[in-house]
Structure formats: structure tokens, C-alpha cells
């Protein structure tokens, strides 16, 4: 289990998007209060268009909330920073850089020496199972491999919190299962505080220590919280797994 130091604290967040004219206002999030403790794997579940990506982007500092604040280790978040590593839904790799070049990018920006960052990057390329592909370019990789690079890159930068925004949404079902297993394995090898956004309840039950669901319509509000105490590694067909999945599905208006 996790220890109880609070890492991320969201206080009463709301977000209203304004159309350019300023007349139409779209409330996306409303009164979201949420905290994540150290090394916890939190999964936020909700259907499409429920504001979950916006919530993650606010925590990342890529959006500013209309009201409310986000704290990381007690300090207010005012913008993006290397203490929060993000894995995007779209494969966000530098097409002109190799796997190695992509993974070490954050470290290079941070000013680490070449030898050091090679070492760190190699470690995480191995951790995500891409050894031998260091010199490959993104267009030579499959979708699953691209997201592995994204995860390795986020890990390599050693952020305090990992933010994953539907990272496997573009993958086929088989690859998605495999990547869920891999994510759980990587997380068990190198514990991190993780906030993972998905629209799949099954994926949430497989990965999470704790699941929060968002309501299925705008503005997004927190609906329920579920603590998942199943032993790891989990099996999709275990009785408890299926019961948990069933309970959440019943209580959530998700279209699956």
C-alpha cells in the first residue's frame, strides 16, 4: 500500500471555456476537489467530453483553472514544469529524433551532460522493453512501441507525478491489454505517483489503487470513489475483478 503523504491536492477546481466572442461560455469542470497521495495509482474514469482531459491538463499546468488551485507538495502549481511528466493521448514523439533522442529530450532540456542522460535514458528504454530500438525513428515503430517511448521519456525525467491522458486510446485491443500489463509492471518496478485518465472501466480496475468517476455530462463533477484492493498482478477474469467492474459499470452512465 501507499504511504499517506499528499502529493497532489486539487481545491475546488472549476473551468469555464469561453468562445472567442465571449458570449458563449462552456462550463467544463465544476467544484473538483481531489487529493493524491505519494506512490498512489489514481485512475480518473469518465466518458468522452466529460472534462477529464481538462482536469489533467490543469494539473499539468497547461490550462489555468477558472477558480480553485492545484498544489504539488504544498506548493501552488502556476504552469507546466518538469516535476510533472505527461504522456499524451496522441503519440507525441519528435519525428526527426531516434528513440534515444526522444527519451533523453527532457534531460537535455534540463541541461544534463550527454553521458549521464544516455545512461538514464538507456535504463528506461530497457525498462519499457525497447532495448535494441534505441536508433529507430518513430515512423519505424508500432503504436504500442511509440507509447512505450512516451512512457520511458516521462519516467526518464524523474517527475514527482506522472500524468497519463488516455495513453492507450489509439491502440488496438490486444496491444492495449499488453500495454496495461506493461504499465502495471513498470509501475511496480519503479513506484511513482500516477494520475491516469481513461474511458475504460476495465482498464481502470486493472491499474488503479483508487478510481474516481466523473459524471457523464458537462460540467464534469466528481461522482464516486472506489478503492481497488485487489492483489497485483491482476487478472481480468478473476471473480473479484469482474464484480468490481460490474459495480462501477452499474453506477456509471458510461457508454461502453
Amino acid at each position, binding site marked *: 500500500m501507499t504511504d499517506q503523504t499528499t502529493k497532489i491536492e486539487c481545491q475546488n477546481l472549476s473551468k469555464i471555456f469561453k468562445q472567442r466572442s465571449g458570449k458563449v461560455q462552456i462550463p467544463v469542470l465544476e467544484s473538483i476537489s481531489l487529493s493524491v497521495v505519494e506512490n498512489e495509482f489514481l485512475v480518473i474514469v469518465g466518458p468522452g467530453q466529460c472534462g477529464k482531459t481538462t482536469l489533467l491538463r490543469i494539473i*499539468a*499546468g*497547461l490550462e489555468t483553472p477558472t477558480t480553485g488551485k492545484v498544489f504539488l507538495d504544498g506548493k501552488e502549481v502556476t*504552469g*507546466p*514544469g*518538469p516535476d*510533472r*511528466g*505527461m504522456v*499524451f493521448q*496522441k*503519440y*507525441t*514523439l*519528435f*519525428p*526527426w*529524433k531516434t528513440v534515444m533522442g526522444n527519451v533523453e*529530450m*527532457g534531460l537535455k*532540456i*534540463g541541461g544534463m551532460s550527454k553521458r549521464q542522460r544516455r545512461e538514464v535514458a538507456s535504463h528506461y528504454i530497457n525498462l519499457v522493453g525497447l532495448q535494441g530500438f534505441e536508433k529507430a*525513428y*518513430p*515512423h519505424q515503430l508500432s503504436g504500442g512501441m511509440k507509447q512505450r517511448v512516451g512512457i520511458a521519456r516521462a519516467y526518464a*525525467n524523474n517527475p514527482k507525478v506522472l500524468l497519463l491522458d488516455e495513453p492507450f486510446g489509439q491502440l488496438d485491443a490486444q496491444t492495449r491489454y499488453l500495454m496495461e500489463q506493461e504499465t502495471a509492471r513498470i509501475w511496480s518496478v519503479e513506484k511513482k505517483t500516477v494520475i491516469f485518465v481513461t474511458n475504460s472501466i476495465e482498464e481502470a480496475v486493472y491499474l488503479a489503487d483508487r478510481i474516481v468517476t466523473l459524471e457523464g455530462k458537462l460540467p464534469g463533477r466528481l461522482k464516486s470513489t472506489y478503492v481497488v484492493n485487489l492483489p497485483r498482478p491482476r487478472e481480468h477474469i478473476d471473480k473479484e475483478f469482474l464484480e468490481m467492474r460490474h459495480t462501477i459499470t452499474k453506477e456509471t452512465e458510461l457508454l461502453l
Partner: protein
Amino acid sequence: MNSETKLKDPLSLKIAPWVSVIGFFVVWQLLIDTEIVPRILLASPVEVGKLLIDKLTNPDPDGAVLMTHTIISLIEALLGYILALITGIPLGLLMGWFVVAEGLARPPFEMIRPIPPVAWIPLAIFWFGIGITGKVFIIWACAVVPCVINAYTGVRMANPTLIQMARTYGASDWQIFTKICIPSALPMVFGGLQIALALAWTTLVAAELIAADAGLGYLITMGRRLLRPDMIVLGMIMVGLTGWFIGNIIDRIERRLTAGLERGGAAT
């Protein structure tokens, strides 16, 4: 090329271009020999060929041998072109990313852009005379436009998610500019180089027709003044050949450079 889908008989495909090219010259020669077209209006291919051989060594009547004219034109075009690259591309890149650069440079640029480069020729003569400098200025003025626009557009097309990702790593504006914007813009920049080159060459000939004391355009103008259609045609042919030649070289350079880029694919 896939000849099957185009022509049933590959032999006629091989012969046809030769027939038309040879036919072209034969008809041209006959038109002059039979005086259907008077000699004062057009020179025959044979006359142009004779003049070509003569002009390799003879500077008369226009003051320079053919090689000198060609080289002067090339130097003028390349100097103006290179100046346009080293000023236009950085300016366009900066305008694409830095709001201040765009705010400062865009309005004057947009004001000057609609003026055709040829319209600068009279002022260029006032300022620089009819020597090399004036032509270099005019070439610069026309070639710099596609350099700026394409570099600007290339930066604007950089993947916004890549930029956000760099931000989450704490990248500074300058780091994002050098590490993301510039590499993303390169394919567009190369496109701009091609457009700029074609523009530079045509504008140069126009400038030389009006104000020059040497160069291929000057050779054509002198042909007009001396009522020598063979000089005019020779000048036209040299302009065409040289333009085709540089186009080929740039093509090759671009292919080699982008081959290196395409290992990574242009954009996701």
C-alpha cells in the same frame, strides 16, 4: 515511368520526342530559308549555332564572350539569392514563434510584399547604378518574400502537442524555438528555396533587360538594339539552359538533405 498504361507501343514512345524536337528545328529552319519569316524578325537555328560557337571566343559586338555573360548573370542571381536566404529564413522563423518579432516585422513586410520586384528596378538604378549591386538588391527583394513566408508558415505548422510536451519539461521559449520550431519548419523552408530560386532567375533577366552592362539579359537587349535576332535567340536559349541547370542542382541538394530528414518522416 509506366509506359503500359500510357501507350501500347513503346517504340513510338521512344521515337515521338525525337520526331517532335527535330521537326521543330527543321520547320524553324525552313521558315527562315523560304523567307516566310523575314530574317530581320528571327534567326535560323543554323545562324544561332554559328553565333554560339563564335561567341565562345569573340567579345564583339556586345563587349563580352558568352561565358562572361553567363557567369555575371549567375553571380548576380546567386549573391541576391544567398542574401535572401540568410536574411529571410531567420526572419521568417523568428516571426513564426516570437510574438514581438511578428508584431514588428509583419506590417512593413505585408506593405512591401504586393509590390512586384520588377517595380524596384528604377529606384535600384538611382541608388546603385546599372552594376552588380542594383541587380543583387532586386534579386534579394524578390527572393526574400518566399523565404520569409515559408519559414513563417513552417514554424506555425509545428505540432502544438510537441510544444506543450516540451513545456512540461520546463523548456524555455528559446529552447522550444531551436529544438522544435526550426526542425519542424525545414520541409517548408526547402519549398521556399525552390520558389525563391525560380523567382530570382526570372527577375534577374528582367532587370538585366532594363539596366545592365553585362549578363545574359544584356546580351538579349544588345541584340535588339543592333537588330541581331540571332543574338536575341542565343540569349534566350542560354537563359533557359542555365535556369534548367541550376534548378537541377537545387533539386539534387534538396533531395539529399530531405532524404536525411525523411528518415524521421516529415510530421506525424
